[in-house]
């Protein structure tokens, strides 16, 4: 049996069942292109009437977008009524295909899932061949929301009584992910708020420093953090009630008193033996690995069911509920991520360490977790707390041995301490939740002060005034380059080359034209600067080959689009996107007219030079 159905058979079979038009989602552009090639000698041609209709519709699109006319897929599109639509194509081509689909001219479109939202046209049938999707570097399972977004393209209102989402297997498929996606409820979404340098500058331009916290508090991020803080506050209230019997006794703070006494009693003989290998990081992190906490391990996520120390070595350990429902024991040092997510966990003293109901619910919650979860910011104390020798020596000074409250203290201590620790933990977590955005903002402020964009009183300096207009990724690198006068005397092609290498974040190799010595040395400078800024901003890839391609387009105004495409193995859709993004970056530089007229002028000339041919077709 073939690993997946042959495209020609697929289309024939869809036609025969009246399941056309269909969108066939494939794993890669290459798969789409190969599917198209497989129709080269296929005999499932359309009747002449329909071929003519396609030709006429294409003709209309071409008057608006001339670049469509030269597309090599046109013969297949007309003959068979199928097309490919993916990020490797020019926007004009994609518009043409969408238009043909809207007019009902095509039987099938082969598309990639990379951007389910990018395919904004419906069909009667959607064919799904995969259950995971490439996100940046690796493949992750589709979420329920994504499966429904894809399947949702099936069934056109007014044109179909029913829509069909059909799975056809490929070696990349996990049926469970898809059936869950079809039948499940979409996941809750979480804020992905992040604080960038331009955001800080623009906020401080418009508002005084003391108002910023209130503005950050308006974010969805803070709204969700508050929701979690409120949950913890309710728990804290519960803890207060539980703590009532353990109020002041003979000494006001009997818990601490007893704790020290107890610790000293135990530590005296075997002092400095336990936990000597434990790093402060691990101790600090272990503190948060409490029952109900979601943690990331090498093989997926789990929920902590209990924390304990191993018998012999006293290593910090946890029992974890895994996705497959198993409970495993694992050293705390194996925990990769500690997520900012904790579930209620009705603890019990024996395996599986929580009540049956809690176990079921946690197992369920674990499967329902969103793919992305924020991790918990954990502060590591400077030095771990070991009791000073002086206290150990002074055991005789403790009143406890002869105190009337001793039996009660001894009996209640374990419970009271646990409750109090929980109170502390919750209080700390609540503080962290309430203040984390503000802290992140302050961190950025400090960096901007260090670089002189903000004054010590957090006002915009002259540099800050113009730097706030650069509102794109890698803004710090760009503004620092401008301040270092890296672009002085650079012509439009050099500026374009550098900007292109900053925008491009794909590391797929390919072949490209040669780079000019001027651009090469300028890029060397940029690389050094980016390296030195790396503690404050992730450096871009800064690929010289990609820069050279963009440089060519500007340096040689007689170069045609087809000529440019011939210089590289990069797909034309990618070249388009590279230049379009570069255009965006250049237009931000163009906004610096008032402070950097020379540079803004170079940017403006570069913009005019980029905008020709295909790049002029769309706004």
């Amino acid at each position, binding site marked *: 049996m073939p690993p997946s*159905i042959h495209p020609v058979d697929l289309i024939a079979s869809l036609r025969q069942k009246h399941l056309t038009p269909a969108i066939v989602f494939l794993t890669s552009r290459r798969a789409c292109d190969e599917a198209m090639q497989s129709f080269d000698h296929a005999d499932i041609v359309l009747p002449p009437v329909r071929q003519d209709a396609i030709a006429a519709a294409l003709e209309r699109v071409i008057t608006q977008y001339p670049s469509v006319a030269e597309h090599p897929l046109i013969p297949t599109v007309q003959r068979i009524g199928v097309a490919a639509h993916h990020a490797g194509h020019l926007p004009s081509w994609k518009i043409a295909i969408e238009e043909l689909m809207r007019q009902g001219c095509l039987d099938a479109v082969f598309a990639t899932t990379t951007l389910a939202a990018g395919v904004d046209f419906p069909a009667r049938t959607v064919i799904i061949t995969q259950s995971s999707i490439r996100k940046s570097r690796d493949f992750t399972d589709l979420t329920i929301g994504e499966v429904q977004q894809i399947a949702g393209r099936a069934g056109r209102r007014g044109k179909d009584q029913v829509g*069909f989402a059909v799975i056809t297997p490929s070696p990349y498929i*996990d049926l469970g992910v898809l059936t869950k996606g079809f039948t499940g409820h979409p996941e809750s979404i979480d804020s992905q708020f992040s604080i960038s340098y331009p955001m800080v500058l623009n906020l401080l331009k418009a508002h005084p420093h003391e108002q910023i916290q209130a503005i950050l508090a308006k974010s969805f991020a803070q709204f969700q953090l508050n929701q979690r803080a409120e949950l913890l506050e309710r728990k804290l209230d519960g803890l207060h009630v539980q703590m009532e019997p353990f109020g002041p006794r003979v000494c006001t703070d009997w818990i601490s008193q007893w704790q020290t006494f107890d610790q000293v009693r135990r530590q005296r003989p075997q002092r400095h033996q336990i936990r000597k290998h434990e790093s402060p990081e691990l101790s600090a992190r272990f503190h948060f690995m409490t029952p109900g906490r979601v943690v990331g391990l090498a093989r997926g996520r789990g929920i902590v069911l209990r924390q304990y120390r191993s018998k012999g070595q006293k290593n910090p350990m946890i029992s974890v509920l895994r996705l497959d429902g198993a409970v495993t024991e694992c050293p705390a040092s194996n925990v990769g991520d500690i997520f900012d997510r904790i579930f209620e966990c009705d603890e019990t003293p024996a395996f599986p360490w929580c009540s049956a109901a809690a176990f079921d619910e946690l197992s369920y919650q674990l499967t329902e977790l969103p793919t992305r979860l924020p991790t918990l910011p954990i502060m590591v104390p400077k030095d771990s707390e070991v009791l000073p020798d002086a206290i150990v020596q002074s055991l005789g000074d403790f009143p406890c041995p002869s105190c009337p409250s001793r039996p009660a203290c001894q009996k209640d201590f374990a419970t009271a301490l646990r409750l109090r620790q929980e109170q502390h933990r919750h209080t700390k977590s609540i503080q962290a939740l309430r203040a984390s955005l503000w802290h992140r903002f302050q961190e950025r402020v400090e960096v901007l002060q260090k670089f002189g964009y903000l004054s010590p009183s957090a006002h915009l300096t002259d540099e800050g005034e113009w730097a706030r207009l650069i509102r794109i990724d890698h803004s710090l690198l760009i503004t620092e380059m401008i301040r270092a006068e890296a672009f002085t005397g650079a012509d439009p092609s050099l500026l374009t080359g550098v900007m292109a290498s900053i925008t491009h974040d794909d590391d797929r190799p390919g072949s490209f034209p040669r780079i000019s010595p001027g651009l090469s040395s300028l890029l060397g400078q940029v690389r050094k600067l980016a390296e030195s800024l790396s503690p404050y901003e992730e450096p871009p890839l800064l690929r010289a080959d990609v820069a050279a391609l963009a440089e060519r387009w500007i340096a040689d105004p007689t170069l045609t689009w087809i000529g440019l495409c011939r210089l590289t193995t990069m797909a034309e859709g990618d070249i388009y996107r590279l230049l379009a993004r570069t255009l965006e970056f250049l237009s931000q530089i163009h906004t610096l007219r008032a402070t950097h007229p020379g540079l803004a002028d170079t940017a403006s000339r570069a913009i005019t030079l980029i905008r020709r041919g295909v790049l002029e077709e769309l706004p």
Partner: protein
Amino acid sequence: MTIDELEQLLVQQPVAVLHRLARGRVHRHFRAGKRRLIEMILQHSSQNLAGLESDVQALIAERQSQPQPPQPPARPAGRTAVAPPRRTAPRGGEPETAEAAVSLTTWLEGIGVPAPQPFVPDPWQNEALAALDETDVVVSVPTGSGKTYVAVEAAKRAIAHNQTVIYTSPLKALSNTKYTEFSKIFGPDKVGILTGDRQENGQAPLLIMTTEILRNLLYDAASGEIDIRLDTLGLVILDESQYIADPERGVVWEETIIFCPSQAKLLLLSASIGNPQDIADWLTSIRPTTCRLVRHSKRTVPLRAGYLHPNGKLVPLFKTAAIPSGHAGHLHPEAKRLFFEYEEETLPSGRPRR
């Protein structure tokens, strides 16, 4: 349906149905008993009873369409034990599992083009538009339901009041498509598009742009450099606003919403998400008026799921023609068998099957 009738209807439903309704509406519903659950569902949907009602109806319809074991006739207790009710008797000695499952013919039934019908807005569309007269609105409905109609109608009304309308999409490609589409609806002189380096028709009452461009405009306006008519801005439509959860770009939606002028209404259009109420509650907490949530999860065009084997054999994916919400395991025995066979043949030996 009044709230009391709705409550009656909920009381008649099995707890499992209530839990499914509660998902995404009520926090921690697993702990609640039936009474409390109903109370919470009603309380949390008080803003959008119509949406709740349509979801209840959908769930009921779905349960009815599932093949159910025949109900034992009402008999005095004690006698039923004699012959325990079984599923429908197997026909022609077929295996029992295959029996309960839908046939391909039934699964394909109804395929085709519906008779043309005059355009009548859906209740949820009217509800969203009416609410928008008063306040901000969050719409969360399945893909293909007709969110564009709400956007267009809302824009028409705002333009009629001489207000400026901004419509944003997450992708430049989508902006271009909408530019063409809206130019046809409103007339080319009424629609403009803004990109980083270009404006076409920047003075038109309806402006299309990506969310990033709008965010930048709002930052400029906040620092006093208004170059667009923000003072007449009456409506901001954020399409595909589920993008707020995008790891890289989501923050732009938050910035845009935080800095959206308070005199302008916000209309957030989103595909189905799990917690639209959170988004609405958030807007309520930061905007001048109480945000209305309009949601439903029933698809307008019913969807069926199938399985196509590499050898060309097409079978239904689930036992039922409709997708059995909440029952990922209700696979069609034939689909299950074929997929198992596929995995056996294609998996390199030793690779664990998930």
